[in-house]
């Protein structure tokens, strides 16, 4: 396997190429993802932002195999995932991917104790030769996510929302994944607890070198965790760049409107009205757009004319 390098100079771990995901619902076709292409390098965190219905979760589900992509290619560790027919083979190839979900209450079995929940992940992936060895890993994981080891025998209901999410993260980490897909994993938590979880994910990332696909609608959190960010709207990926580029030099009007919409913590300053965006009024047709490079890491999906106009304005 040749080590392909992405434009952020990291060896590519996951690449999504021209992914389309359509759902057929009673004669009506819902186009959830349209020609999505991006990649995630080793140790890199890629943030996907967009409003609800923009197709953020669909992409995550396509990668892990919960949705079967309509067309396009998904490659993980050099293996092509799209086209694999058997569930067994898919599971084998995606062993290095783990997922953390939004609602920890519904993603943890309420009848299992915290330690057991984590140990189950080890059992499924045949990690640890003996019960003792597995228990040791479980304790290490609990410690890593800041849950006292004595709480190992408690049930999900006995924990707070933030603690439950920590257990979900411990379970994902236990099998030493290469890539973690975190789908709105902090959306259901309080602001101060969000900060605790985000700080923890940040440490885990630095310590273990795990790659993350961080899916969220909260731009300020995405900015904090991500090396690069992709902006989604109505199923199209509109702009990709490093966190710096997206936040300080956004080019697409939609990205600009998203940034302007973040409420500023200042009672004197109203929100920026000039950055309002309505796609039907703007006259932008996403389907006509192609990728235009602004820098080696920053690109935007638009037509040639739009690109010329937007870059001139800057």
């Amino acid at each position, binding site marked *: 396997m040749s080590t392909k390098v992405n434009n952020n100079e990291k060896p590519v771990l996951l690449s999504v190429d021209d992914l389309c995901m359509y759902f057929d619902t009673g004669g009506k076709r819902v186009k959830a993802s349209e020609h999505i292409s991006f990649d995630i390098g080793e140790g890199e965190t890629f943030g996907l932002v967009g409003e609800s219905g923009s197709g953020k979760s669909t992409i995550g589900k396509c990668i892990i195999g919960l949705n079967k992509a309509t067309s396009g290619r998904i490659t993980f560790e050099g293996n092509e995932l799209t086209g694999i027919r058997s569930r067994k083979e898919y599971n084998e190839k995606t062993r290095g991917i783990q997922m953390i979900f939004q609602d920890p209450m519904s993603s943890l079995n309420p009848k299992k104790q915290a330690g057991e929940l984590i140990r189950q992940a080890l059992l499924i992936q045949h990690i640890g030769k003996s019960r003792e060895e597995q228990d040791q890993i479980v304790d290490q994981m609990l410690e890593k996510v800041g849950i006292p080891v004595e709480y190992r025998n408690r049930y999900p209901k006995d924990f707070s929302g933030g603690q439950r999410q920590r257990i979900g993260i411990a379970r994902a980490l236990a099998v030493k994944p290469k890539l973690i897909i975190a789908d709105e994993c902090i959306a259901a938590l*309080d602001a101060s607890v969000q900060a605790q979880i985000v700080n923890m994910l940040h440490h885990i990332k630095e310590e273990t070198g795990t790659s993350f696909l961080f899916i969220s*609608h909260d731009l300020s959190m995405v900015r904090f965790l991500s090396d690069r960010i992709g902006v989604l709207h109505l199923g199209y990926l509109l702009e990709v760049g490093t966190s710096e580029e997206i936040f300080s030099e956004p080019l697409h009007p939609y990205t600009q409107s998203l940034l302007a919409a973040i409420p500023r913590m200042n009672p004197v300053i109203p929100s920026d009205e000039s950055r309002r965006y309505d796609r039907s009024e703007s006259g932008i047709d996403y389907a006509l757009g192609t990728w235009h490079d602004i820098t080696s890491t920053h690109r935007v999906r638009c037509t040639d004319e739009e690109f010329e106009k937007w870059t001139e304005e800057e």
Partner: protein
Amino acid sequence: MSDDNRLVIEVKDLDISFRMPTGDIHAIRGVDFELRENEVLALVGESGCGKSITAKTIMGILPENAVINSGKVIYHGKDVEIDLLGKKSSWRRKNINGSKIAMVFQDPMTSLNPTMTIGAQLITSIRSHKHSDRREAYSRSLELMREVGITDPERTMRQYPHQLSGGMRQRIVIAIALSCDPEIIICDEPTTALDVTIQNRIIELLENIRRARGISVIFITHNLGVVAKIADYVGVMYAGKIVEYGTVFDIFYDPRHPYTWGLLSAVPELSDDKGELYSIPGTPPNLAKEIVGDAFAPRNPYALAVDFKAEPPLFHVSGSHFAATWLLDVRAPEVKMPDALRERINRMKQEGREYVNESE
């Protein structure tokens, strides 16, 4: 924004417990505030601090295991004064809820009936409070929908909730809340389930409605960015109490309670370098246990010895601004807010001055 405005709601010394099989939970431990005409009061705090329960008490929709230990909720009408807690809930539903005080909840999908068209729900709501025929109610519904910014109201009348987007649904809920011309609207996290862009529009809508109709709003949220945009007054709640209260400028430019310092510090700054995000250490106290001293003391890096023994009273900072922390006692050592926060507030003030100068 002034004290000359007519008083509309007064909450006095509210104290509520929940009976649980495992023992009582003391959820509200003495809440006092006033709401005046044409003002927005924001209640902020972490989940479980009692902000929603306060709202539910005003509406008279507390769960059955709630026990009101003491307190008054006084509604000041044009020429009447009623203690709502002394009235039966059937009386309140008939005379107060909807027509005087309306409520908007967090999730519009659960506050609308999925089996009824939008039109039917609006018309039902109008006709249940006002004597009007269907035709009148229909045209009133169209008017309300235009007021909340729905562009094609005739079409929307025939649609079901699931056919609308989250933002549109919340607009409908607001239209229903407005349908009986209430004097007060209580919004419980109305934008939390929405995207940032939609959130902004809903806040603008509420602001416009307040201006046009001159109504009062109690706005419950945990998002301080939203509070800065909409509130005139802010009550910061912690463990069933208001620990700091003041104008929006008092709270954002001159916060005094260490908990408010923590909340403000925890808001991520967009211009920040990637350091560590600030988070308040620890978790809120268990309200099933008796709280001795200041409930925030165990999480408070500035806690004094007295904080663990005696509960701080409300100290006045100015006529409109007070905080319940022993740090404001004359005997307390001088403690300043964290440097990072002070620098940030100075930047906010500077930005504010620049903005005001530019727009002049």
